[in-house]
């Protein structure tokens, strides 16, 4: 019964987006539709998670074409968790966008809906070629969001970063497509379920799979192909950065997990490559952040570092490592969005995110400070936040696998992460803002200041609507840290589905 309903997660956002292009001038209407679709998608994700608790896998072949030709959609626990969290984070980011005025820009709701459809489709599909198509759907709307949401008022004028973003992602997509072509050439199918285990038997399939994994690593920004992310994420508007950080690289990571688990069946021969690259990603990312001078570029480098942690889960293949990696992924999406939204709120209101230009936020905006501090501690892995549980689970898995060097790297990197977060904290949240700087910030800020700048600046506060999203996500990371058992048991079910892929394969091919 639910089988045919899962395609609605792609169809409804796409149809809504199509309808909204016709009425894009009615801003309120578009925002209402956008929010209702996103809330419905979140609710749908929760329903799917509840349905997957007993390990059932829901699958549907679109239009009931026979398996192998149809577009297969599959939802197991991993997919359901990802669907829920991506939809939830998009909803929260859009709430933020409503209060910054971004959502009122023409076509913003449309593009976000297309993005949602692309993300849901890429998460659910069990076919490599369809994955390529859905990733492109996701990216095409992302290109639009990136260009139309340049910082400040300049629509379509400042495309800094956009060229780099488009070219790198197009290159990665093209390489992925080539990998799909090779896969079809050597295996005669691109259905992930039909390809199950072939890569560990046939070297040619393994090579084709490696081409796909390489392309996905570019999208997931694994060192040494991480440079594009840290140069493009900080230059768009804060809300778009938050949405991208929650969705884009995470879909690629999900695909790496899925492909390695099903097509390679967690082949132990290649795991050392992952351990090496993902440890390097952790270390290079966190060291790169040291030299950065704006809040968002620091956070972008930390994202690279955290992606190393998440992918370690797949390199430590096994029930423990996968469960830890999936938990880390969900935790990271929430925390990173929270951080981008809290620093974004400061950036939108005070006109700059450069360290040292804004000071004394903790005193003036205590709630934002609380949200940032909680999320920053969670990112560094301090108890009782979810970051602690995530890191602990991952380190336990690494010890279990006997990877001592990885354990040492992971602990060292989290210490440096904490240092970097404290740097933002001491530069932006502590200290006193000098009157002169304040006047500069006031004239440059997006708010029109009509009377005495200093006095107005003194009163100016970040509105509740811009605080609430990051505070909500910070509370969520605390809740996931304190009540980690619930989510951990869900991620263990998800990991079990990746270790024993039989139910997944049966669901795809049997329906």
């Amino acid at each position, binding site marked *: 019964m639910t089988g045919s309903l899962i395609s609605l997660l792609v169809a409804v956002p796409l149809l809504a987006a199509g309808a909204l292009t016709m009425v894009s001038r009615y801003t309120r209407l578009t925002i209402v539709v956008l929010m209702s679709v996103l809330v419905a998608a979140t609710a749908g994700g929760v329903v799917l998670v509840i349905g997957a608790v007993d390990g059932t896998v829901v699958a549907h072949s679109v239009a009931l074409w026979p398996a192998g030709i149809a577009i297969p959609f599959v939802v197991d626990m991993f997919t359901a968790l990802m669907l829920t969290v991506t939809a939830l984070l998009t909803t929260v980011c859009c709430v933020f966008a409503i209060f910054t005025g971004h959502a009122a820009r023409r076509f913003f709701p449309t593009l976000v809906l297309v993005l949602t459809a692309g993300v849901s489709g890429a998460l659910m599909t069990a076919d490599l070629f369809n994955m390529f198509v859905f990733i492109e759907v996701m990216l095409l709307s992302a290109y639009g969001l990136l260009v139309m949401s340049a910082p400040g008022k300049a629509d379509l004028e400042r495309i800094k970063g956009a060229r780099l973003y488009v070219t790198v992602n197009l290159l990665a997509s093209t390489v992925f497509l080539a990998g799909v072509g090779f896969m079809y050439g050597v295996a005669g199918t691109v259905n992930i379920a039909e390809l199950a285990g072939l890569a560990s038997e046939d070297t040619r399939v393994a090579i084709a799979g490696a081409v796909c994994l390489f392309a996905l690593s570019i999208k997931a920004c694994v060192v040494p192909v991480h440079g594009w992310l840290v140069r493009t994420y900080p230059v768009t508007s804060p809300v778009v950065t938050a949405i991208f950080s929650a969705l884009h690289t995470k879909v690629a990571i999900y695909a790496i997990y899925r492909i390695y688990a099903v097509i390679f069946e967690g082949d132990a021969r290649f795991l050392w490559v992952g351990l090496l690259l993902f440890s390097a990603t952790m270390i290079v990312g966190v060291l790169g952040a040291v030299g950065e001078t704006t809040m968002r570029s620091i956070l972008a480098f930390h994202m690279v570092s955290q992606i190393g942690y998440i992918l370690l889960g797949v390199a430590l293949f096994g029930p423990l490592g996968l469960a830890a990696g999936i938990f880390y992924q969900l935790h990271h999406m929430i925390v990173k969005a929270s951080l981008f939204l809290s620093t974004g709120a400061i950036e939108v209101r005070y*006109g700059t995110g450069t360290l040292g230009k804004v000071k004394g936020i903790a005193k003036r905006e205590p709630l934002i400070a609380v949200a940032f501090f909680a999320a920053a501690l969670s990112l560094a892995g301090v108890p009782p936040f979810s970051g602690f549980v995530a890191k602990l689970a991952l380190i336990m898995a690494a010890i279990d696998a006997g990877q001592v060097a990885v354990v040492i790297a992971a602990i060292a990197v989290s210490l440096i992460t904490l240092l970097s977060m404290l740097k933002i904290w001491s530069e932006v949240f502590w200290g006193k803002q000098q009157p002169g700087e304040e006047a500069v910030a006031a004239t440059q800020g997006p708010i029109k200041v009509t009377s005495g700048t200093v006095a107005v600046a003194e009163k100016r506060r970040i509105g509740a609507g811009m605080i609430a999203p990051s505070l909500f996500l910070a509370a969520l990371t605390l809740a996931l840290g304190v009540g980690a058992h619930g989510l951990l048991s869900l991620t263990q079910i998800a990991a079990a589905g990746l270790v024993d892929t039989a139910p997944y394969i049966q669901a795809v091919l049997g329906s």
Partner: protein
Amino acid sequence: MTLALSAGILVTGAVYLMLQRGMLRVVLGFILLSHAVNLIIMAAGGTSRRGEPLGADPDPAVTADALPQAFVLTAIVIAFAITIFMLALAVAGRGDDDTDDLIPVHSQPDMDVDADAAASEATPSDDNPAETLDEFASEREGGQS
């Protein structure tokens, strides 16, 4: 073999063009690359069977594999859409980044972008502070040559 050679030549040209500095050349490189990948997919379907997969009862031994053709069709549409978008990006926002052919040293934008995000909003001309009309014109010419 012909397909493999053609794909190889296309990839060579694509890599050469994509390593150039101008955005237009990069776009042309991507066009070549997507053609190369399309040829790879066509080759994946096999080149010996060429009959059309139509009619009441097509014989699988002689008809072409329709699936790669459908893949290629989809890929062409996507590549076309992104090419148009990239061509638009090649025209818009000159000097916003360092992909242009010739950039005067003084207008080299720093990659520390957020620092000047707010500043350039207040005074848009901050992007290229020392740029005069003459320099702009010479830059244009340089870009076209």
